[in-house]
């Protein structure tokens, strides 16, 4: 049933600077499912994540993306976010001069409605609670968004946003990279908390480790801009042993589009 899927990607082709990076992606995530994507560097994983969210530099050549049975390709990024799509960035952006808490307040009120943030003190308590949960020091509430954060701090801040925004589908682009082992456990605990409430997850990673805590239902291999294989959780373990040598794309991965 179509209704069972939170995300449906059909034959998605995406170019950057006239270079087609995604060459026909078919991928789906069921409601409540954890779908892991693995693949070599430069294979197009982040491009897929950005394209889902609608980054303006990524040009959609063809295909469709449905979120909760509704096409979202024509929506603005903020509208997609309002419909419950969340992207934890591989490289979160720094916004100097914008205070973290004020940013979180804007984000939460845009996505969940201004009622959620009307009581400033209540919201502040909520933010501090989640920060404590993730082991983020309280002082970060007053710091500028990602400005001068360490790699791991940025990743925790992404998860903090996820916890506050409670999306329907979280796309996590290498959220585990740069996190220490303890942080991975905390982050996974947070993500699982949302999963129990029905959140679906598309998790991009290079390592089995995070998948020990956030158990995937399915694992797909993305290489050369295409999904080359989809299987159960055992595929991730296998890839850790064998690498991607069996998944060399047939054509050059960097087809030039004319």
């Amino acid at each position, binding site marked *: 049933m179509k209704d069972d899927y939170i995300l449906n990607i059909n034959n998605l082709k995406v170019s950057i600077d006239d270079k087609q990076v995604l060459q026909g992606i078919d991928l789906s995530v069921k409601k409540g499912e954890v779908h892991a994507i693995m693949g070599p560097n430069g294979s197009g994983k982040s491009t897929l994540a950005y394209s889902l969210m609608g980054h303006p530099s990524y040009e959609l050549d063809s295909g469709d993306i449905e979120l909760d049975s509704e096409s979202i390709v024509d929506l603005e990024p903020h509208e997609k976010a309002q419909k419950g799509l969340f992207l934890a*960035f591989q490289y979160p952006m720094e916004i100097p001069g914008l205070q973290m808490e004020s940013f979180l307040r804007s984000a939460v009120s845009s996505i969940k409605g201004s009622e959620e943030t009307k009581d400033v003190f209540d919201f502040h308590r909520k933010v501090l609670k989640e920060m404590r949960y993730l082991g983020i020091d309280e002082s970060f509430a007053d710091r*500028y968004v990602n400005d001068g954060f360490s790699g791991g701090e940025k990743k925790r801040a992404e998860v903090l946003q996820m916890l506050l925004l409670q999306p329907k589908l979280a796309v996590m682009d290498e959220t585990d990279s740069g996190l220490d082992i303890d942080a991975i456990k905390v982050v996974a605990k947070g993500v699982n908390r949302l999963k129990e409430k029905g959140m679906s997850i598309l998790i991009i990673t290079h390592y089995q480790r995070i998948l020990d805590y956030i158990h995937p239902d399915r694992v797909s291999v993305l290489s050369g801009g295409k999904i080359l294989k989809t299987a159960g959780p055992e595929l991730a373990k296998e890839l850790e042993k064998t690498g991607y040598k069996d998944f060399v794309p047939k054509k050059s991965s960097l087809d030039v589009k004319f």
Partner: protein
Amino acid sequence: MSKEDKFSQDFSEFDSYQFGHYDKVKHIASTGKGISRDVVTKISELKNEPGWMTDIRLKAYEVFEKKPMPSWGPDLKEIKFEDFTYFIRSTEKESDQWDDMPKEILETFDKLGIPEAEKKFLAGASAQYESEAVYHKLNEELGREGVVFLTMDQAVKDEPDLVKKYFGSVIPASDNKFSALNTAVWSGGSFIYVPPGVEVSTPLQTYFRINEEEFGQFERTLIIADKGAKVVYNEGCSAPKWAKSSLHAAVVELVALEDSRIDYQTIQNWYKNIYNLVTKRAKAEKNATVTWLDINVGSRITIKYPSVMMMGEGARGEVQSIAFANEEQLQDSGAKMIHGAPNTTSVVTSKSISKGTGRSSYRGLIKVLKGAKNSSCRVECDALLINEESRTDTYPVMDIAEDETQIAHEASVSKVNEDQIFYLQSRGIPEIDAMKMVVNGFLEPMVKKLPLEYSVEFQRLVELELEGSVG
């Protein structure tokens, strides 16, 4: 074409301007279009001035006629001096009652929030409409302490000794073509004298309103802080959305005697076709401090470099300059710091934003005279560009004749980053709001230090300017 027709034709791209309405009010007196020796004399006559002021004006007029237009910097070819009206009187005389002015004028000041601001956070307020003040009032307590707050016109009559001593002492008529013009045809502006040891910590404020098209406003302000005195002064301004430009050429002189402090704060929000060519300079004696907060959002071209001449040992000067150059605007602002005595300190912080074809430039002069030992100067200017075609330039000039000085200059240019906007959008924040957040973030280190009423007003103006900057 009637006046109203011309008016309603205003340029749609400037629609974010909030205070662009025109009041239909009768003129009590006007010198008509153009400038001449006769016009200068006529202004002096209309004001019933003593002969010594008429002489100052006429001498300045000669200087004005001889001086060439400034050759450096922005192109001022479009300015045709014969097109402006140099003097308009709108009410019989200034009053200390808001209700005394014509209803249309009062409504305008109400809309601008001036009477309300006076009640909330001002110790004295003046409202200039065209050439002269229509309202002027000082808190009685300060009057009893000997604080003098008059319109400049009134000061010529009531405080001739102080005016004779200090008028033109910081900025001579011959300084530049526009200071000469101002000295010849000046009208309105404020005169403030704060006696020794008296502190005026609640601001005094003057608001300047231009109403007519092709009008010239030439207020003249002189503030004297006597030994150990303190004063905070605010100014603001606006004008209707006329199709044809007006000229605003003010001269502001500050005299900070020993151990005194003057804080001068401006939010310039002229309509986007006004030439705003202003000379502002302070003289700081021993251990005196002068700060200029200079915010420029409006005008077609602004040329203004607030300056501090630190002539006494231990004097301090500070300029905080914020400029927003929107489509078609040129904000040529900056600062001049003259270190004329030992142990003097100056700080210049400038932040500018250029949007679309808007262009902002920082022009700075740091001059350290021989013998001004152990002086220090720190300059920091940051520019933010919103679009590909936006431009910014920095022209720092340093003239250091003394070895024992510390000079630091930092400059940066950044562009609003598409990825930052996308990041915020991905958190549900619409593009325009994301843009505002990034721009406000750029300004934040400076804005958080502003007095509250200024930071709120300024952020609101910036947000209005950013409307329509995406898509």
